[in-house]
């Protein structure tokens, strides 16, 4: 838990404070200084339009991490709702919910997101929609699995006998048991969302210029691979470091929970 807390603090700081540390406006074009290498003036150099790469990178953190957070939370809400509906709603609801989940799982998530975002028209809203609607299935499976194991517990039986409506039972008696596992799934999906956002950005289907987003920065940098190869290193490195940190924190959290459950 502590590692995850630390990580969340670090990422919030990066996305919250990072842009304030940026030396320049990330969208200001400065053609005379275009494609300059690292210097005292531009620590990481400038891109093809003379924009400061460091500033774009720091502002990009807000786009990449912020959007990834929004997407992973939206998909958590969708998935948990569907999973709990499956666990609580009786056999028909369970069947419908699980076959829907299978249907969405039948297709590689990122490819589906590319198709959806592409057909909807590039932009931030299509990006959020495409990645959320293709990212909820794991939450649904976990929520359903735990939900089914919770339903025979004494306090759930008692709540039923008391006449508590299903959604209240879900809220008060199922959700607390779900939170640890959902957090583990969330770390994984948060990392996946960062990768997805930058992948879509790289293909030109995601966040649109002039907004600095790591994937679309890579797309810009790709053209100038020969002249300024370093330009392409930074956004990729930012993605790798964030994803790696999140995955490691997720692993630590999963191990901690497994140890907690083990003696029982």
């Amino acid at each position, binding site marked *: 838990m502590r590692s995850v807390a630390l990580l969340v603090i670090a990422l919030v700081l990066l996305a919250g404070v990072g842009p304030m540390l940026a030396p320049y406006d990330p969208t200001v074009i400065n053609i005379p200084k275009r494609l300059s290498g690292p210097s005292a003036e531009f620590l990481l150099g400038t891109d093809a339009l003379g924009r400061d790469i460091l500033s774009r990178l720091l502002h990009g953190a807000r786009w990449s991490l912020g959007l990834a957070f929004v997407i992973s939370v939206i998909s958590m809400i969708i998935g948990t709702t569907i999973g709990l509906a499956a666990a609580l709603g009786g056999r028909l609801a369970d069947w419908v919910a699980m076959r829907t989940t299978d249907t969405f799982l039948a297709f590689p998530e*990122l490819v589906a997101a*590319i198709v959806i975002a*592409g057909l909807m028209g590039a932009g931030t809203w299509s990006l959020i929609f495409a990645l959320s609607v293709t990212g909820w299935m794991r939450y649904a499976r976990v929520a359903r699995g735990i939900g089914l194991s919770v339903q025979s517990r004494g306090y759930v039986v008692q709540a039923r006998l008391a006449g508590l409506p299903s959604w209240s039972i879900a809220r008060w008696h199922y959700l607390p048991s779900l939170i640890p596992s959902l957090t583990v799934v969330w770390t994984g999906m948060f990392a996946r969302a960062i990768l997805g956002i930058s992948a879509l950005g790289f293909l030109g289907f995601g966040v649109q210029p002039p907004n600095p987003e790591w994937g679309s920065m890579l797309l810009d940098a790709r053209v100038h691979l020969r002249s300024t190869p370093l330009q392409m290193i930074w956004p990729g490195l930012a993605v790798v470091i964030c994803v790696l940190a999140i995955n490691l924190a997720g692993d630590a959290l999963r191990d901690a929970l497994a140890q907690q459950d083990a003696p029982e």
Partner: protein
Amino acid sequence: MIKTAGGLLLRALVVLSGTAILTFALLWNAPGDPAQAIAMARFDALLTDEVIDQVRAEVGLDRSFWQAFWAWLGPLLTLDFGNSAVTGRPVWPDLWASISYTFPLAFAALGIGLIISVPLAILATKRPGSLLDRFAVGLASIGNAIPAYWLGLILILIFAVKLAWLPALGASTPAHAILPALTLGLGVAASLTRIIRSGILEARGQPFLPAIRRRGVSDRSVGRDHVAPHAAIPVVTVFGLELAFLLEGLVLVEVIFGRPGLGTFLVQAILSRDFSHVQAVVVLTALVFVVVNLVIDLIYRVIDPRIGESNA
């Protein structure tokens, strides 16, 4: 067993129907006037409303949702993808040409992934927790965090730009496939290493193994007869995931390396709003994945009969 197989088959059909409806709904609701987009792509000139309406009727975009859905579904059931509304050419030959580029690349990547991950995982699990094991796990973690497009660009930078050993863009010679295959293969290796490693460790933890060892069976044959099959279970089940991972990577890698193939085909189709091409890729992919998952489910139940109704 037959009942289970029947249930799984029914489930696969339900999933396929769901995919068909979702795909069509997506195409149907895509913003913008598809008729106009198609007409523009085809004629590439200023268009009158009459031309656009003509295209609309020709492509069948003037009907109601369900009418259009059934009309759309009919030919698909025989895997007849029709003609592209944009290029006017039949879809299959173009699609097939892309697949013929993508398949060898996917196989090469899978091969590279296996060649790296299997020995690495076996070596790593000889002494769990050892330096080598940690190295393998660390490498896999980093590999999992590196996006394929970035790795591809770095490989291009090193081997094509700096060293000039290998060609970077296009697909004209087999050498052109080396960097893309490596890019994908390293990603596959990273995820497979983790899976195989934990598969082996879990299989070693099987409660019956000490008893077999006590009977004097050699370590080697214990490994071959008892550990390997158990380690294979997670590998078989993640094969579907791995295939998904490959396809996701393929789309990006083909774009980076400017290679023709299924991925570029799809991205091009999306950009030119060529619905026939998009739906062909989507339907074909869904079909492949549903069949693969069906087969995996069946194999899974054959290897490990304990799994059955519990996760039905």
